[in-house]
């Protein structure tokens, strides 16, 4: 069996890639993809630990995470669409009608 630390390293790497993408990308769609990466990093953890602890809690939780990730994307793309209509761009740094 592959030791659980390896999965932790993998998930931490995937999470960090997602976080990096999220901080550096300006395209809202790439931003969404980065968030998906971060959520899936959590899924890797859930499934690896589920195997390690021998209970199914983690696997069921990962199903919930998948379901909610889909819902989040659905809402997110809707908002990005509205943004595109109003600003003619999906660059997240363009809308600056309010001070940060």
């Amino acid at each position, binding site marked *: 069996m592959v030791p659980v630390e390896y999965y932790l390293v993998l998930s931490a790497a995937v999470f960090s890639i997602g976080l990096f993408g999220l901080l550096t990308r300006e395209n809202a769609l790439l*931003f969404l993809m980065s968030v998906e990466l971060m959520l899936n990093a*959590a899924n890797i953890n*859930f499934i690896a630990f589920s195997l390690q602890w021998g209970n199914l809690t983690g696997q069921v939780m990962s199903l*919930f995470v998948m379901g909610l990730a889909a819902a989040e994307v659905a809402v*997110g793309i809707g*908002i990005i669409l509205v943004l595109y209509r109003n600003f003619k761009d999906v660059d997240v740094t363009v*809308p600056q009608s309010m001070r940060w």
Partner: protein
Amino acid sequence: MVTAPPLTPTFLLGLTALAVLTYDSVWPDSTDGSVLTGISVVGSLASLAAAGWFLTAGTGLATDGVSLYADAVVVDGMSLFFTALFAAVTILVSLASFDYFAGKENQGELFGLMLLAATGMSLMASANSLATAFVALELVSLPSYALVAFLKNDRGSSEAGLKYFLIGALSSAIFVFGVSLIYGATGSLLLPDVAAAFESGLGDRVGIAGVGVLMVAGGVAFKAAAVPFHFWAPEAYEGAPAPVSAFLSSASKAAGFALAFRVFVVGFPLGPAASAGIDWALLFQVLAVATMVLGNFAAATQDEVKRMLAYSSIGHAGYVLIGLAALSAEASTNGDVMGAAMAHLFVYGFMNTGAFLFVALAENWGVGRRFEDYNGLGAEKPFAAVAMTAFLFSLAGVPPLGGFFSKLFLFAGAVEAGLWWLVVIAVINSSLSLFYYSRVVRALWFEEGDHDLSGAPTALYAALAVALIGTVVLLPGFGPVIETAQQAATALFA
């Protein structure tokens, strides 16, 4: 003897949302919101009544609590207390939405989303498992994103929606990663089991658990609009339609705190956690100071009323964080100070909603957003201006208004717990807040202004009146509120 299911208040909110959607399916093209408002108000009132009845009628729920669905959900004094608050805010906001969104399209969506978010908040207060907590958190977040971006032809609204969504998606990813680490360290998602694992020692998994706790705190800080995930708050509150800002800044914030109270107190007991090096009370002390200083100082430099209220809402999150920061492993004051924080959230639910509803009223009249634009409103619309004055002074904590008493109990609890330095900072901030709140009051009453105001929208006025009653009349009735809150909080530590 409880004959109704213990989750009745939550169910009622959810069923009301479904009823709104069903009505909207039958008459999809209606732009008349009166029936929708009626359904929402009646449903939320029923939920409020059920929660109040469970709390007071000696059903045993308030003191003992019951856990349902294999311990995934628990109904106790704290969950009922917060559910009552969410239902009350939903009533106020529904009433205000009737006038604010009059004649607009898609009102069914508005009320449906608002009620679904309220259901999620109520579930958040009941969550006894990190899985339930995550699902409930998303059930609050997803409708909130859509609500903020509700005015789809308005650039400010869609920009606010985007920023809220981006930070929300980031923080929920961080939250769920934290949950996965907690699961890895303890082998369970149920809070009592997590606590048991903490108590029996984590061994070499302490590192994982520590990072997990930190990330869960991050997710909660987003909902509560506390540092370091507060960036969305000024944007979202400013750009969103004012009733939605009212809803988010009071109900959604309280939901974040409800989750934080239960997860940290029940799931990560301070004694074993601190001795393992995960001293989250220290973390919350730092966050409380940072949040209230940042919120209040930024609020003092604003020149738009709505944005000032947004920053002041961050400041209030800092005060409430004292409720977590002042906890310690063996102290008997834990229940008191956390109960005071809950009571402050309750009063805040009325006064802050009321203040944002006055902004909604001003937007409805077509008055501008800046302080100067409010000049002379007091002479023309005395009732609304009196209500706004009461809300602002209550927010600042001027005696004898509701906000004063809740702050008093909160600060006294913190002093008892030995955190006098935190209280000093809080009091300094509180007096600074009096300065920027009174700028609005001065504009309302002491400046000359010229407005052409059309009428007094009935439902908005009714909502203002209810919020005013909540703020002012809670003052003699403050005893029961603080008692219920402290009793519920103490039960959590048992």
